């Protein structure tokens, strides 16, 4: 199943994805973005919203 993943080397922790998530599935901590995968619908809005392209909707890791 696809999951939202954040590239920590790119992310600026600005909160754009968090405030823009239509399902309020994300939370911004100072150096990480938490995604509640039970609430996330994998709609991909956050991927486009991210000003620097830090998010991807990819296959979940192991």
């Amino acid at each position, binding site marked *: 199943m696809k999951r939202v993943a954040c590239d920590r080397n790119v992310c*600026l*922790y*600005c*909160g*754009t994805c*968090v*405030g*823009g998530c*239509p399902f*309020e599935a994300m*939370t*911004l*901590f*100072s150096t990480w973005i938490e995604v509640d995968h039970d609430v996330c619908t994998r709609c991909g*809005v956050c*991927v*486009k*919203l*991210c*000003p*620097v*392209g830090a*998010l*991807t909707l990819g296959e979940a890791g192991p």
Partner: protein
Amino acid sequence: MKHEVDVLVIGAGPGGSSAAKAAAEAGASVLLIEKRQEIGSPVRCGEGVAMDWLRELGIPPDQRWIAHEVDGARLVSPCGHVMTMDARRAGNETGFVVERDAFDRALASAAVRAGSDIWMRAMATGAKMVGDRMSRVKVDRFGDDVTIVPKVVIAADGFESRVCGWAGLNSRLALKDIDSCLQYRLVGIETDERWNDFYVGSMAPGGYVWVFHKGEGVANVGIGVGAHRLRKKGDVRMYLDRFIASHPELSRGRAVDIVAGAVSTSLPMDTTVKGNLMLVGDAARMIDALTGGGVVHAIRSGQIAGAIAGEHLQGGQPMDRYERAWRREIEDLLVRNYVAKEKAVNLSDETFDRIIGALCELEVSHITTGEILAAVAKVAPEFMAELEDLL
């Protein structure tokens, strides 16, 4: 651990610090909490603020946070027509270009001097509602779990607000009402530093590019793009890089910092008071949808909310007065500029050229709003239809 307090303010941006100061001045015990380790940093702002508005809010200019002063703003059309507006006409983003981190720190310090307590690295992580009341707020303070028992809660937690949701208030935004933004602080550019520049057109779909000067060849060059116009990952950065590359006076500069963030370009929330909770600033979606400016609205709504919290605690006056109080001062402008934004985002490059071309022939700094509108009505009647009854 439990901690009782009259007023809990969540978020130490301009809205939260102003609320904490006003509540403390009204005699309440106040706790301001901020999840970051440093007030105002990293910066998420173009840093343009109207100097007149700041004075009206009782914030005298201070060299510690003023980077640069400009005479006004210029609006640049896609083909290069330039309309110059003096500071009075340019609206709420011109006058000063500030250092937002120093500015926010000054506001937080003023709250502390007024008697407010402040906890840094303290993040609100959840709340317990009893009916309409937010009776407990869970805070992670530097790794320790603390339960705050507040009489009043002021949510000043910005664009990413979670507090609204805990209280059952819907703060979700439609994509067309979000601008995703990216900005570089460019050093070594060669531009006219007397004016802050706004570029409109398809190079920034649903938004605009700004060049806000900080003096000595330094400027914040940023872009906002309407979220509904974004097609793929990394589009915002692509648009900004493309704009800078096509402007030699900017592309000679080098970025010494990168600022990202989002602004709401919606109407303000329908409900901003619930039980013992008030929402201020970006958390209440009080950003000006046309300009993206929100600092002064955050400060003003914070001042009002803090004062009302104080009066409520002392004399039992109802808090729902907050709703009317801030709307009386700010709402007309927010609604008018929201309608204007809804129009502006759909204009073609040709229409922008026609409108700005017509306006730059007028001596805009000396004419009345009515004359400006008459000029716009002539060249772009379709733009005027709904605006006229509002203005």
